[in-house]
């Protein structure tokens, strides 16, 4: 009995410490008034990697990112480009410290991201699907 209980505690501990990759469904969102309906993966990559920061209709976009300590950010880049956050930060060091492109605006919280995109017409960011509201529009869904 004691062994079974220990195993159960061990299992709960393992499950709690596992990354929540499988649980969180992420979507790329824009302001509800943005005319863009859909974006391709390559367009989303260009935008969040600072290569071509615009919507498909050519209008300039404002990319909004989370600060590095957020697990959601790690999941987003892993799903979008298949790279670790260390690799993404190394990449952005090349862009930022050469002044090649403006870095994305950073928000401390997912709620901050939702609020900014909901009130800024040309903003774009990523959030858990569960945080969607009527002022946001999904333009790309990240597959697990």
């Amino acid at each position: 009995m004691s062994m079974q209980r220990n195993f159960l505690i061990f299992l709960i501990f393992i499950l709690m410490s596992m990354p929540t990759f499988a649980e969180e469904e992420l979507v790329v969102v824009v302001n509800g008034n943005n005319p863009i309906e859909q974006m391709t993966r390559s367009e989303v990559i260009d935008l969040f990697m600072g290569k071509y920061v615009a919507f498909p209709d050519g209008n300039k976009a404002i990319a909004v990112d989370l600060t590095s300590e957020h697990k959601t950010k790690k999941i987003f880049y892993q799903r979008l480009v298949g790279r670790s956050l260390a690799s993404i930060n190394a990449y952005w060091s090349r862009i930022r410290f050469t002044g090649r492109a403006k870095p994305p605006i950073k928000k401390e919280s997912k709620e901050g991201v939702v609020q900014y995109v909901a009130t800024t017409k040309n903003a774009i960011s990523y959030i858990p699907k569960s945080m969607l509201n009527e002022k946001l529009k999904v333009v790309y869904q990240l597959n697990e």
Partner: protein
Amino acid sequence: MLLRLLMLVFFLSSFSGFASDDTQFSAFGTIGLVTSDSSRYGYRNDVSYHKGVYSGDIDFLNHSLLGVQLDKSLSSDVDFVGQAVIRDLADPKFERYITLGFLRYAPSANWQLRIGRTAPDIFLITEYRDVGVAYIWATPPNEVYGMIPFRSLDGADVAYSTHLGDGTLRAKVFTGQAESVISSAYSVIPIELKNIFGLSINFSTIDWSIQAQHTQVKLANEAEDNQQIIDAVAQMPPFIWPDAKQFSESLALKGKHASYTSISGQAYLGNFLLTAELAQITSNDTDVIPKLLSGYGSLAYQLGEHTLYSVYAFTDSDSYTFDEPGVKTQLIPELISGVESMNNFYASSQQTISIGWRWDFSDNISSSLQWNNTHIDDLGGALWLNDSADLSADTINVLMLSVSFSL
């Protein structure tokens, strides 16, 4: 210097960056340790640096630096970027610590114009060569990057970017002027470039990129040591040196032109990262700058937070031996030696095999441990400091450890 750098890194590590929607502060830095086994050729990061690492030395100055940056949005189309890099310099001047300082006007996502101080986009990594976290190596291959002392360009550039297929095409033209120094074992020589015109074209997807760059420059000054040799040659009477005047003009660098050309590519193939670059520095106007062909190929394998890599790099140029017809060399041996030294000043001919291990021990801090085995050919050690008269071939081992961060 090192202690101050460590304290600054510690301070910056405890701050997660001050940022608002319009203003962002960020920082990067490296603490680098270098040891070498040569008592004749002193290792240095590039030709601007004046402190070589010799056998028995443990050097913290060649690779260590701290950079701070401000990004300030002034309107939806205009922003300012300023950057300062604190490091040990051969000839410290305030303006040499300022590496970026430009205004950008981006009227659309396709076009941007930058005016002010930017980073030189001459070869693949010249723009971010001092940002250690940005590449896997402890330092970019010296064979290609060691010959370029410039860290900034004062002028303007225009870039065009567009989404093309699954990738992005980016083309940039730039113009301006630059200055730095080149150090020998005996002196630190200012070098100025004017009328710089360059073109850089890049096509990249998330998994691979190719790039071509070409830059033309005009050399704007004459080093004092060179001028003395030029004057001495010009004053030689015809019975010693028949065409001395004409020859002395061929030695002058001021007003002469040089060009920098590079083609490069990078590709992620699963866990492998391949990087290769072929570069050339040449001048049709003067023999003092020989045709320098250099390149490298790097293969890295990433396993989680660890990356193992190897690099083969080379640089090749002809060395100069005095053989002008009709000159009575036995009467002016010191001057002939001076002419040979001058024409071999930029002669670089060596090959390096490197193996290394990068460890990303957090999302924004990494270390790179790298061992270089370099064979220098006869008279080919321009990338090194050597205060002896012996310029013959040698094989040198250099061990380097760099810890780099970005915030």
